[in-house]
């Protein structure tokens, strides 16, 4: 087996395992532990991106998700001191509905992926270096990019407005 | 007439200039100060610290270090084991064993001397109460401030050690000598 394949299975297994540990950790129900496993999931995902030669996406994944978003999560979890969360019992209703939803999604996704023939001689030609990505974003996908930017801006303005105690 | 509010004076903060807002003058003066000290210490030897075991601090007059027992000029233990220091000692560092009923004929007019006198230097806080309370001027806070030992028991100073460290006190009060002189005078007085 070639190195890239080996690493692919390693990272893939890690992603799945850590992802499962985020939501269903048998050893700890601490939100901080869940968050830390989410960070590990993100890191393994970044590893997968690297295997796809999408270095930029991998780096951004780490910087934005692991480096910023999850730190903020942690910040909030620690500030709120979610001790009750550790004591909460698993509810049958939540478990059943969750499994149902996952199952349904699986039913949708697996045949689709099966039919699309992923992994069977599909040769990714897209090199994820910054130049190509920049080109693609700012020419071909300019409109969606700008729309998303606007959306984010609106969200930011809204957040600021909401966090202000009183409007002057 | 005047309520408290009227007595308040409000000092207005000085407006900072643009440069000051950029911290530039502060940075510059900080740099100057630190550099001056750096230069003076490194190249002009202006060190304020002392390298302790080799260089020792000259203890000023009146410094209160460890308490030791003193002898008088006639080599007699001044302590009469009145136990006032033991009583007054705030950390209970002093422990005196009185002599008991046996009379030691060699002590002359002084009937009472401590059989044992111990100061636990680990407990002692150098407060000086013992010196202050002593009616016989037998214990003095001396200049030792750095007492070391390798075991706890070593830091309990016994009478011999305290006397050896304390030395001789040349005070004006020689109570027992005075009494002995008086008694001699009285013996010599022969009213006809």
């Amino acid at each position, binding site marked *: 087996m070639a190195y890239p394949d080996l690493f692919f299975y390693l990272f893939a297994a890690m992603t799945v395992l850590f992802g499962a540990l985020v939501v269903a950790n048998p050893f700890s129900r601490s939100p901080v532990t869940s968050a830390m496993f989410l960070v590990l999931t993100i890191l393994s995902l970044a590893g997968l991106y690297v295997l796809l030669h999408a270095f930029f996406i991998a780096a951004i994944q780490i910087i934005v998700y692991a480096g910023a978003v999850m730190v903020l999560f942690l910040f909030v979890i620690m500030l709120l001191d979610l001790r009750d969360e550790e004591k909460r019992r698993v509810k049958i209703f939540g478990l059943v509905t969750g499994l149902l939803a996952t199952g349904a999604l699986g039913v949708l996704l697996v045949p689709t992926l099966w039919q699309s023939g992923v992994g069977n001689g599909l040769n990714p030609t897209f090199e994820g270096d910054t130049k190509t990505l920049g080109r693609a974003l700012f020419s071909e996908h300019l409109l969606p990019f700008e729309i998303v930017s606007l959306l984010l801006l609106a969200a930011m303005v809204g957040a600021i407005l909401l966090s202000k105690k009183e409007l002057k | 007439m005047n309520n408290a509010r009227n007595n308040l004076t409000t000092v207005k903060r000085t407006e900072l200039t643009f440069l000051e807002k950029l911290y530039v003058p502060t940075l510059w003066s900080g740099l100057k100060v630190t550099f001056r000290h750096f230069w003076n210490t490194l190249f002009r030897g202006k060190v304020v610290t002392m390298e302790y075991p080799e260089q020792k601090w000259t203890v000023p007059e009146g410094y209160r270090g460890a308490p030791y027992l003193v002898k008088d000029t006639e080599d007699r233990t001044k302590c009469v084991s009145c136990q006032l220091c033991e*009583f007054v000692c705030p950390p209970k560092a002093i422990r005196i064993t009185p002599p008991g009923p046996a009379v030691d004929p060699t002590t002359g007019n002084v009937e009472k001397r401590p059989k044992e006198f111990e100061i636990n230097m680990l407990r002692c806080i150098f407060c000086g109460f013992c010196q202050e309370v002593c009616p016989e001027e037998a214990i003095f806070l001396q200049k030792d401030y750095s007492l070391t030992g390798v075991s706890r028991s070593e830091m309990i100073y016994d009478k011999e050690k305290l006397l050896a460290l304390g030395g001789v006190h040349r005070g004006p009060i020689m109570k027992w000598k005075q009494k002995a002189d008086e008694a001699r005078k*009285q013996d010599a007085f022969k009213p006809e």
Partner: protein
Amino acid sequence: MSTPTTAELKPAPPPVETIRIKVDGRELDVPKTMPDWQGKPQPTTMLQACAMAGLEVPHYCYHPKLPIAGNCRMCLIEFGTPMMGPDRKPVLNEDGSPKIARSVLPYEPDAARGAIACATPISPGMELYPSSAATKQMREAVLESLLINHPLDCPICDQAGECKLQEYSVEHGQATSRFVETKVHKPKQVDLGPRIMLDDERCVLCTRCIRFTRDVAGDDALGIVNRGSYNSIAAYPGRQFDNNYSLNTVDLCPVGALTSKDFRFQMRVWFLKETKSLCATCGTGCNITAGAREEKLLRFEPRQNDAVNGPWMCDHGRLNYKWVQREDRLSTVISTRTGSGTWTGVLAEVAEVLRNAPKGSVAMVLSARQTNEELYLLNKLAVLCGAITDSIAREGQGDALLVSPDKNPNSNGVRLTGVAYTEMGIQIPKIAAGIRNGQIKTLVVFGEDVTRHGLEGDVLSRLDHLIVSDVLPNETTQRAHFLLPGCAHIEKRGTFVNVKGRLQKFMKAVEPKGDARPEWEFLGELLQLLGRPENFKSLEGLFNQMAKDTPAFAGLEWSRIGDLGVNVKL
């Protein structure tokens, strides 16, 4: 000779005849007579009147239990009497009140003339000025003259801390002495007797000691010799001051002149933890104050109880404390059967032995040195085992003052708790015979060396089980199969009943050594192991329970006994 111990305070016959006087301007009715040192009514003195007004007049030679000498002059106070006209009628002021003539010196009408308050009786309408400027000046003068030859050696003086001269110098003295001449140095370290050391320099010549030994102890051994400044106390030539009450003079001495050879230079008095206790040397049960520092007993002093011992106690009892903290005292609980060395283990074994003993096979010899509470619990134990019990009488020599011929502190307790109903010791031969013929297999001994009282070693060796509790080792404890170290009375709390039937309690002065525990504690546990749970948790509870169960103590409670005890019906 009448003694203060027998002088119970009898209620004064009503109505009391009173005299109206003024003390420091305050009107006061005082009885016309008061009991003197022997309890006989005598005209009330100025000092007693001031005491009733709540003002203490300083004094050295005066002592309520000694004849009055009036020689120290410390109690001088200024006073006044109603002025009498030539017509033998009181002279009145303008407002109608009687005019008072202050006492003055005969030829110096400006100077007040004091009277010694301890020996001057009061008269109707008299005015006393114990706080006036003149009184203050008199006291200063007296103190100054007392201090002329007194050495300022408080640091080495054992009296420091409980010295009247120190106290009055602070309260009434002046700070400086004007005396410039050479001080007279009187003899120091004078050996008055086997227990007393005299320092003549410190003596203020109050003669309390002389009066005590002459009038109370009945041994006229002391007197004053030499003249003037050289006055000093001495024993008569060729005589020792060695009667059995000599140490009381140390307590009486207001200064540090008379010191106890036993306590001399042992410890400053302010370090002593003082505990109210009793003397357990004889049946009198003198009240004492035990002084100890850091679990070391240092001295016994009499504690005034006019119903028992007055302010005195005998030397023998006073010095009878050293055995308690002897090196060889019993301090380990042990069972020689199993080698167990813990209270739980040994008590369980003892309980097993007693539970399995057939009726009539157990005998108990219980000392009259145990407390009532312990005897009560032991008696319960005896009833439970069907045991035959006895105690041991201890007869000795008594005297007319305090020493009782009964040398057990609690003989009456033994009788009242039912351990020995009749004469103590008559069951002992029966017990010996029972052991010899094999009927008695188990012997419980508390606080006695039975080998010296009719149960010799060869008798004890026939026993199956010998359970012994004691404080000091002896032949019986050496032979014990189960040894339960107990406490001397000074190490525990409890009550004794003295020869006259006074129930008195005592407190714990020092901790027992090693494993030793108060007997009542482990007896309670033993009874519990034998299936007779006791519902007391403290000595107070035990006493109250005993008082309920014992007819002689009916109606008593620990909290109501008081420091001086109560009389019980014998």
